[in-house]
């Protein structure tokens, strides 16, 4: 019986000599190397997130190319290194893992038995239906939405000074959470409250965060709230066509006094799965990272929040066609769209900026505010999170 010992692994430059070793049966012998990692990336002190991203990318590629063996191996690894209750990187990776599993399950080549699906707990993401109070207090917890609300409300207030009739068209997905503050501010104008018509348009009811009320019910609540502030409000909802270019053209024909456009600064539009995965991974780490600063572990709100993020991840990764609704576009592209639709951008006033800064002071230290030309950008640890832009007809 023979034995031999391997010396410690050779430095990288010797690897080429290894590959020159004569290997019989090379042709029929299909070796399966583990997919590699670009070593330069690993130089950073926090290589783990990069590794996880790389594993997710390899997994996505394996699924797309029907490489069942590799996909299974990587899924096994991911399952073990990304528990749903781990640190923020692990939870982020877990969300993507579940989305990849959902994608594999949706693809024609695999068969997902309901029995098996049940055996694997929590494949379906149960997103929470917020009550109005819950949602209102939830959006107050971080600047994520407050930033846009503050910038928009401040800009609107400035521009409607002197008008007695105001029509607000609210196109956001946050169920008018912005509005009560605005109503309050309008009610306290020195010249008295104006007549306000609020149109809520284009909102769907099945994208998180989800409300447990219909828009009709929400509208009547707002009206009630407004009337306690001795203003007159009417609310109606309508559903315009959703195609962005057409929509902006239609918007332009309304000749609005001001348009505030606020959105998350990320690109989820690529048709290539891996590109989308990378974009989404490199953006959605932010909500997971911020969570520790305002939501305790195990809190219900944290569960809700994470479930909503998982919903988004799954939508971006596992769905195609009309089902994939999370098609964020970055600021640059929206700016271009608005210009094409004959709007020009205007600056937010100094007052607005200081309002926003004030608001940020109430939150954790990692949040920041950046000015990019006329636009305002909310940042977390220096990374762009949400942008706010203001437009008038050109």
């Amino acid at each position: 019986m023979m034995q031999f010992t391997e010396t410690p692994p050779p430095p990288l430059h010797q690897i080429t000599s290894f590959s020159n070793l004569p290997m019989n049966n090379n042709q029929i012998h299909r070796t399966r190397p583990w997919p590699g990692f670009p070593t330069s990336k690993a130089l950073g002190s926090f290589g783990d997130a990069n590794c996880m991203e790389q594993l997710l990318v390899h997994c996505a590629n394996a699924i797309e190319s029907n490489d069942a063996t590799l996909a299974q191996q990587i899924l096994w690894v991911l399952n073990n290194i990304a528990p749903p209750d781990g640190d923020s990187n692990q939870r982020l990776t877990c969300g993507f893992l579940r989305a990849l599993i959902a994608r594999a399950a949706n693809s024609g080549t695999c068969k997902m038995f309901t029995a098996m699906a049940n055996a694997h707990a929590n494949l379906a993401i149960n997103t929470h239906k917020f009550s109005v109070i819950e949602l209102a207090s939830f959006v107050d917890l971080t600047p994520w939405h407050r930033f846009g609300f503050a910038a928009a409300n401040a800009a609107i207030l400035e521009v409607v000074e002197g008008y007695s009739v105001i029509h607000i068209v609210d196109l956001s997905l946050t169920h008018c959470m912005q509005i009560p503050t605005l109503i309050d501010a309008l009610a306290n104008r020195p010249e008295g409250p104006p007549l306000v018509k609020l149109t809520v348009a284009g909102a769907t009811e099945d994208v998180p965060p989800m409300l447990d009320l219909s828009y009709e019910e929400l509208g009547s609540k707002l009206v009630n709230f407004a009337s306690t502030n001795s203003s007159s409000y009417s609310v109606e909802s309508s559903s315009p066509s959703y195609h962005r270019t057409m929509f902006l053209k239609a918007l332009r024909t309304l000749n609005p006094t001001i348009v505030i456009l606020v959105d998350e600064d990320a690109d989820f539009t690529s048709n290539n799965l891996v590109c989308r995965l990378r974009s989404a991974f490199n953006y959605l780490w932010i909500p997971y990272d911020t969570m520790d600063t305002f939501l305790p572990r195990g809190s219900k709100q944290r569960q809700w929040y994470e479930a909503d993020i998982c919903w988004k991840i799954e939508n971006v990764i596992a769905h195609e066609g009309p089902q994939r609704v999370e098609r964020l576009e970055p600021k640059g592209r929206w700016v271009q769209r608005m210009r094409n639709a004959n709007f020009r951008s205007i600056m937010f006033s100094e007052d607005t900026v200081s309002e926003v800064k004030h608001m940020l002071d109430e939150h954790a230290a990692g949040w920041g505010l950046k000015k990019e030309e006329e636009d305002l950008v909310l940042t977390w640890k220096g990374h762009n999170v949400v942008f706010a832009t203001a437009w008038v007809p050109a």
Partner: protein
Amino acid sequence: MKREYHHPHHPTCSTSPTGKGKMWDADPQQDAGMDELLAVLGYNVKASDMAEVAQELEQLEEVIVNAQEDGLSHLASETVHYNPSDLSNWLGSMLSEFNPTPNCALDNPFLPPISPLDYTNCSTQPKQEPSIFDSPSLDYDLKAIPGKALYSHIEQPPQQPPAPPLYQRDNKRSKPTASATANSVSSVIGGWGVPTESARPVVLVDSQETGIRLVHTLMACAEAVQQENLKLAEALVKQIGFLAVSQAGAMRKVATYFAEGLARRIYRLYPDKPLDSSFSDILQMHFYETCPYLKFAHFTANQAILEAFEGKKRVHVIDFSMKQGMQWPALMQALALRPGGPPSFRLTGIGPPSTDNTDHLHEVGWKLAQLAETIHVEFEYRGFVANSLADLDASMLELRDGESVAVNSVFELHSLLARPGGIERVLSAVKDMKPDIVTIVEQEANHNGPVFLDRFTESLHYYSTLFDSLEGCGVSPVNTQDKLMSEVYLGQQICNVVACEGPERVERHETLAQWRARLGSAGFDPVNLGSNAFKQASMLLALFAGGDGYRVEENNGCLMLGWHTRPLIATSAWQLANKPALPSSTPASN
């Protein structure tokens, strides 16, 4: 297809590998053997009558073909035929249903030769699913076969387009079932197609029962071998070969491999010494790629190892089944990214000597070292060449203090049962390695009983199920090669189980229950694999298995993967028993 019809008394055709021609020599001694053979197969006819029977068969065939215009549906359902085992009378009754043509066109080049032995039972009362279990003439308890394995089920589809002709003819026969179902062992019906490698075309008027006959014949042959009636066994094994080619898909392959095993046993042409190890590694790689069994083995074993290594800073895996090291990249990656960072990872790979000049244990180690480099895991590798695991001694492995040891064995332990004391020595050596976890994967079957016939029956069921499951895998051209090699891989095992004895018979599979008893009495306690492992295994199989029938089962803390209701492999995990075995607590029987 040209027909060669020589003489009414010697209906034979082109050379057949089974040497059928010999059977027809008008030799009384041969006749007696033939009579016996026919009797075994259930036919009430003498060899000397066969010529006449053959002639009548040809007439019948001619008549059927000519009756095509009117369709044969009346044959299929309403007509009653008398006692098919009484061939002569049966034929007579069939012929009297028609208006026989005066000329049976003996020299018609388009008619193939007929072997009456292949004239299967054309009983046309629609049977309920005939099961070989139900046949009263069988002594075998084949009830162990679950589901549809080896199971002929007759469908009468409402509209059946005629199948392509058996041979070049314009007249077509209606085929009872769709060819799509002919692939699985579970519907042994596709008897119409003649594969090109067969030298002998076959006439099967009703091939629905050929599959059953095939199984009967296999069993009869094994029984003849068991009883050392080699002459009968020889006759039967030829018959098997002949029947097997009329089947399709898994049934044919399984039957062919078993026939080969039987033939080798009968003629004492034992298989060569163990294959070139790198070739058998290649076969196993293809098996790995084609179907989920090995993958399941790896990720269930790895799950146990990963969990056992939690919190340990220095770990050492001793792999009895190193081969191409396919199991380890995933484990190493999981260790690399585990919370708290990777441990230092040592791997000792044990394998047989290679018969070519490559040192594949060495190569595998190099590749894993490269991988470890890229994922930043401190890695050390040692390869051990051993003719048998029983040669191992813990002291050779240079075990170190403070190391957490895992011993891993995938499909390796059963071969130790071939030599007395082998398994005991190995288990004792494993204990000396002081492992924190021992992972064992074995085939879930008892192919090691003392009686040949029992082993034969068990393995026939087992490999039929296994081959059945393979039919679902490998659709694309690349995968077809994988599938083929997988079948060769399994065929090697079949051959070993059937043809070999003594130390050469290494495929001595035993069931989980048997291994449990062995390991228990050797001083090991079971470690539950956990619900996490079960859920993961189920999920991964659901996503990627490639076939609808795979099932993961949990069995007292162990996990099994099977096809439909038949478990085929089992993963179990073990640790050293805490207390030394006291005399009073030693189990009385195992």
